[in-house]
């Protein structure tokens, strides 16, 4: 565990958080801190969920270009949301919060295991898998649009789900569920960090060392799916942010050990997201478009990684 890297990451996060909480604050400090504190928590939880799920997913699939969102995990979750609403009656009162989240997440874990277990079988042709994943995401999003339209055909102005997340409308009760979930899952993954390191070696070396790669991979799909479900439920789909964080962490961590990668990724991701939000909200005054920019940058990073790999 590289303590120096972790300390630097922690410092980065704390500075970002402090800026977020204090920059441009006017008026009642108590209120402001409480209000911003909640937003800070939301941003942190989402960033940690995305960063950790991406890093683990990349370890399991043995490449740094895939992310769960590229494979359409988030679209799957949104679709399941729509389907449960459709099945249980549109706009059923009280259908929100913990029960909804629990049901949807359970369904998602099952569906994800099925869908992506199938896809990841032939891990040779990486680009084909990625392409399939992206198109699968498109399919799921289109299905979602279809389902929504079927339910609300008279809603002429129905906006198809956008690919930017909304941080200003995070449901508070969801946040209080999400935080412990993300904390627990991340802790659990950290405990199993050594096993992750072995998995990162690849299928055969892992087998030699006594780790059944395939079973471990499918098993790890559960926490990954859970984290994706949480972040999507909280703020909506995020596609390239995880890739960006993962690329940065692998670059600066100077080690491949997950005991460092995971916490560093969590801290750097959270710090980055908070910093960008601060920048956009306070300095540039361009509110909810943080993620547009991050996603675009992440998209460019994605392309760069693809090209670099192709040239190799």
């Amino acid at each position, binding site marked *: 565990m590289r303590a120096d890297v972790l300390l630097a990451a922690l410092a980065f996060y704390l500075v970002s958080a402090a800026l977020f909480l204090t920059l441009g604050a006017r008026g009642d400090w108590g209120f402001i801190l409480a209000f911003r504190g909640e937003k800070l928590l939301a941003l942190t939880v989402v960033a940690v969920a995305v960063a950790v799920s991406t890093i683990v997913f990349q370890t399991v699939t043995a490449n740094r270009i895939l992310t769960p969102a590229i494979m359409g995990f988030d679209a799957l979750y949104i679709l399941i949301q729509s389907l449960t609403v459709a099945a249980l009656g549109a706009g059923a009162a009280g259908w929100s919060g913990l029960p909804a989240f629990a049901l949807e997440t359970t369904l998602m874990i099952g569906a994800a295991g099925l869908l992506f277990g199938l896809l990841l079988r032939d891990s040779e*042709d990486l*680009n*084909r898998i*990625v*392409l*399939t994943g*992206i*198109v*699968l995401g*498109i*399919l799921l*999003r*289109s*299905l979602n*649009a*279809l389902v929504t*339209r*079927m339910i609300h*055909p*008279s809603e002429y*102005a129905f*906006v*198809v789900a*956008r*690919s*930017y997340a909304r941080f200003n409308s995070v449901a508070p009760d969801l946040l209080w569920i999400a935080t412990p979930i993300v904390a627990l899952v991340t802790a659990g993954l950290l405990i199993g960090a050594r096993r992750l390191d072995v998995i990162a070696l690849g299928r055969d070396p892992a087998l030699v060392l006594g780790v059944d790669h395939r079973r471990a991979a499918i098993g790890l799909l559960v926490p990954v799916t859970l984290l994706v479900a949480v972040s999507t439920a909280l703020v909506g789909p995020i596609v390239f942010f995880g890739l960006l964080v993962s690329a940065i962490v692998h670059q600066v961590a100077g080690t491949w050990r997950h005991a460092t990668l995971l916490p560093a990724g969590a801290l750097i991701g959270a710090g980055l997201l908070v910093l960008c939000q601060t920048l956009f909200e306070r300095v540039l005054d*361009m509110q*909810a*478009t943080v993620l*547009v*920019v991050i*996603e*675009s940058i992440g*998209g*460019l990073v*994605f*392309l760069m990684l*693809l*090209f670099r790999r*192709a*040239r190799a």
Partner: protein
Amino acid sequence: MRLGPLIAGFALLILASLLLGAGRLDGDAPWLLAVSRLPRTLAAMLAGAGLAVAGVIMQMLARNRFVEPETVGTGQAAGLGLVVMTVLAPGSALWLRMVVALCFALAATAVFMALVRRLPPRDPMLVPLTGLVYGGIIAAVAGFIAYENDLLQFLDIWMNGEFSGVMLGRYEFLWLAGGATLLAWAFANRFTIAGMGEEMSQSLGLSYRQVMATGLCIVSLVSAVTVVTVGMLPFVGLVVPNIASRLSGDHLRRSLPGLAAGGAALVLACDVIGRAVRYPYEIPVGTILGVVGACVFIWLLQGRVAGQGRHAR
């Protein structure tokens, strides 16, 4: 494939399109047909034919089976042009907006083709992958500008392909797509040779540059006209040429009529389904195509076709 049943099926489809709709065909029937149903049917067929042909041209030029204008940024760039025009010159005429959309589409596609040339030919999946991300980035930029100018909802409506707004006087630009299809047929041999590569083109005395430029223009024109008139119709340009290729090969001069017909039929069928499945409400054809097309695309990516894609490279 026997021609008779196919033609009969197509005719039935057209009939269904003319008869299906929220309004009833009674005394006003001729008027309704002339103003709404017939233009809508024609629009669907023209757009479908144009997009299928644009798709196959792009595939020949990019030398890759899994690209088409709506998934590699051409369509998205046309949308971007629309947004920019709406922001800068809100009251401008439709033809002017179309020209601007065309220019954006042309520029974006030219850049994409330049990108594709730098990609290693060993990996056929890299090209559509790059295209999807590239298109996504363009879409994000358009969304950003739209958001900043309170146009996000409009952008969504414009970009989601649907024919419900089509009527006499509002779709005529799509005939340009039809014209582009005819042009493509005239140039079919040239595109096939271009599909064999730059060296083969040169060896046979063809100006690769000219063919590429013509192809780009046709592709961008069809895409811009379609996006501005009826919105994005995804996957048509991908699914129809791939299936046609499996059935009858890539000799464009021979296969182009079938391609155009296939594209027309696909879009028309999806529109009819969209109108029928939740009658009297309509599901936009773009949504139906998104589901149907994505399924077929995924099917194409698995199995033998993808393997062939690798082998033929």
